[in-house]
């Protein structure tokens, strides 16, 4: 491991800026967030960076390290510096920038507000009693820390900016957790198809690749939801059977 590394960090806002270089001394176990805090402490206190837990649980320190979306607190410097000892740290590029490494992710919170929370019929006795077999599947989705790395890497939002039609992987996970919940009585499939835009996803699995909680976003949330939507909207045999049952 090198004793010293060069950090190339974006300094600026939406109107412009530059990538500035900082030399930082390293130590065993150092993560990129440590290096950023070292710059703040000893070289440039005006460097803006959002962080909180430094334990990969709050999801605040999302950034793009050498072009890849990562949590800075979970990325060891020796894993990412190049042959010259350089690490490039940029803010998330799918959301408006506030300053330096801080971006405005409020669009995600606006989308979250449009999703109806868990809705359980009044006749179900409280407190809820559910078998483990019924909730195991959705427990994986509860690991989400809302770091929005999946939203950042999703090309539908990143390259096509279809925030007008697609909610993004984070909310596909949220909707899957509700749709698969044994007690929820809402029609999530209609919402997934008509409002959340699940059809926009072309399952390139980048969201799954960057998830720091290792949630199988595509395999366990998006694809099963696509299949459930297909049951309702794209399967002619099921559609015919439903019509026959109704008549």
């Amino acid at each position: 491991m090198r004793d010293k590394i060069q950090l190339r960090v974006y300094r600026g806002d939406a109107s412009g800026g530059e990538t500035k270089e900082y030399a930082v001394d390293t130590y065993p176990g150092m993560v990129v967030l440590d290096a950023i805090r070292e710059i703040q402490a000893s070289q440039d206190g005006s460097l803006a960076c959002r962080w909180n837990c430094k334990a990969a649980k709050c999801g605040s320190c999302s950034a793009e390290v050498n072009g890849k979306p990562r949590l800075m607190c979970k990325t060891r410097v020796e894993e990412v510096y190049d042959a010259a000892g350089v690490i490039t740290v940029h803010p998330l590029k799918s959301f408006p920038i506030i300053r330096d490494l801080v971006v405005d992710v409020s669009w995600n919170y606006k989308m979250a507000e449009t999703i109806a929370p868990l809705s359980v019929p009044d006749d179900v006795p409280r407190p809820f009693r559910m078998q483990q077999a019924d909730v195991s599947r959705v427990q994986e989705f509860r690991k989400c820390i809302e770091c929005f790395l999946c939203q950042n890497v999703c090309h539908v939002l990143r390259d096509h900016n279809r925030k007008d039609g697609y909610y993004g992987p984070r909310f596909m996970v949220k909707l899957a957790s509700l749709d698969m919940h044994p007690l929820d009585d809402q029609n999530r499939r209609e919402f997934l198809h008509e409002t959340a835009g699940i059809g926009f996803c072309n399952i390139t699995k980048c969201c799954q690749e960057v998830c720091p909680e290792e949630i199988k976003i595509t395999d366990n949330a998006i694809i099963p939801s696509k299949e459930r939507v297909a049951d309702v909207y794209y399967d002619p045999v099921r559609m015919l059977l439903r019509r026959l049952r109704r008549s």
Partner: protein
Amino acid sequence: MAGYKANQIEAGRAPLETALRQDHWWLEPVLVVGSLTLFSIYALWRAWEGAYFSGLQALQSGASWAPAYLSPFYSPPVHEWFPHLAASMHISPAFFVLLFPLSFRATCYHCRRSYYRAFFLDPPACAMAEPCAQRRKAYTGESAFPFILQNLHRYALYAILVVVVFHFLHLYDACFVVHKDGSRHFGIGVGTLIFALDTALLSLYVFSCHSWRHLIGGGLNRMSAAPIRSMIWTVVSSLNTRHGLYFWLSLVTVGIADAYVRMVASGAITDFRII
């Protein structure tokens, strides 16, 4: 790779290049394009050839015995069921057969991931800019024609299930040799082992499919109410984690099985017998 700045996509984003990865991100798309193109050319050539698809053809070139192998490219044996159909249409029977695996593989979730990335560069790799994203009309993904048809993957699954059954039948046939006088005797050759491997990997590929996983129990919310379906779903879910691996391995073995049958049928090699 030519990129663009994030603020060209949406005002307010940082004025930074969106394609900055320095690792070997290009390796996967190159390998996918190379392997799928090679396989497609080989499969097209073999289908077009319309010959050397049965191990029994070795009998016609003077051999005293021949293994009862049938190339997976010609299974189910449409050429036996409708011998005049292909001839009257001047088309190889393989083209009727290949529609089944082709539709299944083309709409397979893993294959879609691979070709959207490698052939459509949509995106070429995670966090790498799509070359034509700014020139394209509004992106619609799989919500509009033609890619909306991917939602019919389950029908391709039903078709491939028939192919899997025939793979097992032909594996059984591959356990026999046929002599010139028409008698059949049990025997295992190298081809039998290749067929066994191909059948096993095709089965793993098909039964780890996301649509199969959904049909078998993925649509359930109360797993405890259907313990048998829940148990099968758990097994399929476990297989599903390696669906991509099975996709590629079964693609390789189906090609090897066909190439082996061709070599035996054309007399280029004699099937090595184990039993």
